[in-house]
């Protein structure tokens, strides 16, 4: 049974159709990739799933409950976490506060968990630094572990590899694989094909708001429509 079922979702802005009746289904405990040229609707689809955009038509189901029409915070509380393509940490909160602020329950536990996660991405020494003072890559890591603080069942990652150095990237990818092994589902937008090939079991391809292909990465790469979308005819 699908954890997330996106069914015929449409979204237009004025006369531009950003997502044109896209359907995808995600099974629990797997890693999915979402690729496509710039402007193909990947981020808009993320926004439709997480409630940041109100969809024009279609349905979004999460664990058998309709979540389209809910506020983003309600979607998040049901267990969907995300990162943003353009980093969105809280700059005038410290790295640790960035993690604490999304938690509920006893504070000491949350603080311990936060420090663990910062240690995991090797930022423990910067725990009390304002997030706005961290480098791009460090902010990206804070944003990544912030998602983990909420213990989400489904994680949407918008270009996790962009701007992260190789060594760190490998740790990050290992972490994503581990999240999958814990039974979480991951959907990631990524331009780095090596990352997509190495990690994803299934890839969805968008082009001009349409889903033009779906399948294992090896097959997708040979798909004519995909090649056409990326390189032109």
């Amino acid at each position: 049974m699908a954890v997330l079922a996106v069914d015929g979702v449409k979204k237009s802005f004025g006369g531009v159709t950003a997502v044109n009746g896209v359907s995808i289904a995600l099974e629990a405990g797997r890693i999915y990739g979402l690729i496509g040229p710039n402007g193909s609707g990947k981020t808009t689809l993320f926004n439709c799933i997480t409630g940041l955009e109100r969809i024009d038509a279609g349905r979004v189901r999460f664990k058998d409950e309709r979540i389209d029409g809910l506020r983003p915070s309600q979607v998040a509380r049901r267990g969907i976490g995300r990162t943003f393509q353009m980093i969105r940490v809280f700059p005038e909160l410290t790295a640790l506060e960035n993690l604490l602020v999304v938690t509920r329950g006893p504070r000491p536990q949350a603080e311990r968990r936060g420090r663990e996660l910062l240690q995991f991405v090797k930022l423990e020494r910067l725990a009390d630094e304002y997030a706005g003072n961290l480098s791009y890559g460090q902010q990206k890591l804070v944003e990544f572990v912030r998602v983990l603080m909420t213990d989400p069942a489904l994680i949407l990652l918008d270009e996790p590899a962009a701007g992260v150095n190789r060594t760190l990237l490998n740790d990050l990818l290992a972490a994503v694989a581990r999240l999958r092994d814990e039974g979480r589902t991951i959907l990631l937008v990524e331009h780095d094909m090596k990352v997509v090939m190495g990690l994803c079991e299934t890839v969805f391809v968008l082009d001009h708001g349409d889903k033009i292909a779906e399948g294992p990465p090896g097959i997708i790469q040979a798909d004519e429509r995909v090649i056409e979308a990326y390189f032109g005819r």
Partner: protein
Amino acid sequence: MRLSPAVVLSGLALVLGALALYPFVGTGYGVRAMLQVFMWIALAGSWNLISGLTGYVSFGHVAFFGAGAYTGAILVASAGWSWPVAALAGGVAAALLALLIGYPCLRLKGPYFAIAMLGLNEVLRALVSYFEGLTGGGNGLSLPTLDATRAIYYVMGGLAVAVTAMTYAIITSRFGLRLMTIREDEIAAEAMGIDTFHHKLAAFLLSAVGPGIAGALTARDQGYIEPISVFPLAITVTMIVMVLFGGKGTVWGPVLGAAALFVIQEIVWARYPYVHPLLFGAIIVAVVLLMPRGVLGLLQLKYRLPRTI
């Protein structure tokens, strides 16, 4: 530069003790001036709760002051309530008003919220002028004479302490951090599961209570109120300037701003009555250009001081 809690607490106790004894030794003018400072601390501190923390700038916060003033005055003058109870009722009335206004207006994004609040204040002033039977309309409302300045001094002082203590409690809590995420990045806050609307509403309610009580106390102290005396835009602007000067989003910024600007205002007012409005304008411009974080915000950043200063 870290002061131990014991030092800070004994320093605070000393200051509060001195302020408690002051009415017995101070001049009439001095006591009235301190009373004003307490009022401004309560007003600026309250404005800081919604606008300093969430970044939603309220341009009509004096509406809560006016609502509290009229509620308190009517309850004392027409219903014969004792003024301390009427003052509490003023706070409750302001909170109810905040609930009523916050529900639609806090869904608006920043600048639209600011303008809506400005409108609210004008509407309230018009309403108060219109319902003459209850409020006396433009003729104002007189309260039975009573000299309670000393008692009001203590209650207003207690209010200033309460607002500051509440600010401290909020800023050191995750609730306070969540309010700040609204200022930092409201969309990210929502996406991380923070119910931004209800957080804003809670902050707005809390920020209305202090001005409501302060309004009712001021009405009792002055013995006479009229629409233009309790709903002037100038009160809102003064609150804003005090917080910006002291440091928005900090605990002591509003206290520092209220005290410093009140003193400056008194001096300038006495010597150069005509340039007084000019001065406020100049301070706004200077603060925004030279230290947009205010005095404490600047120190905080420069010396890595905790947010709780």
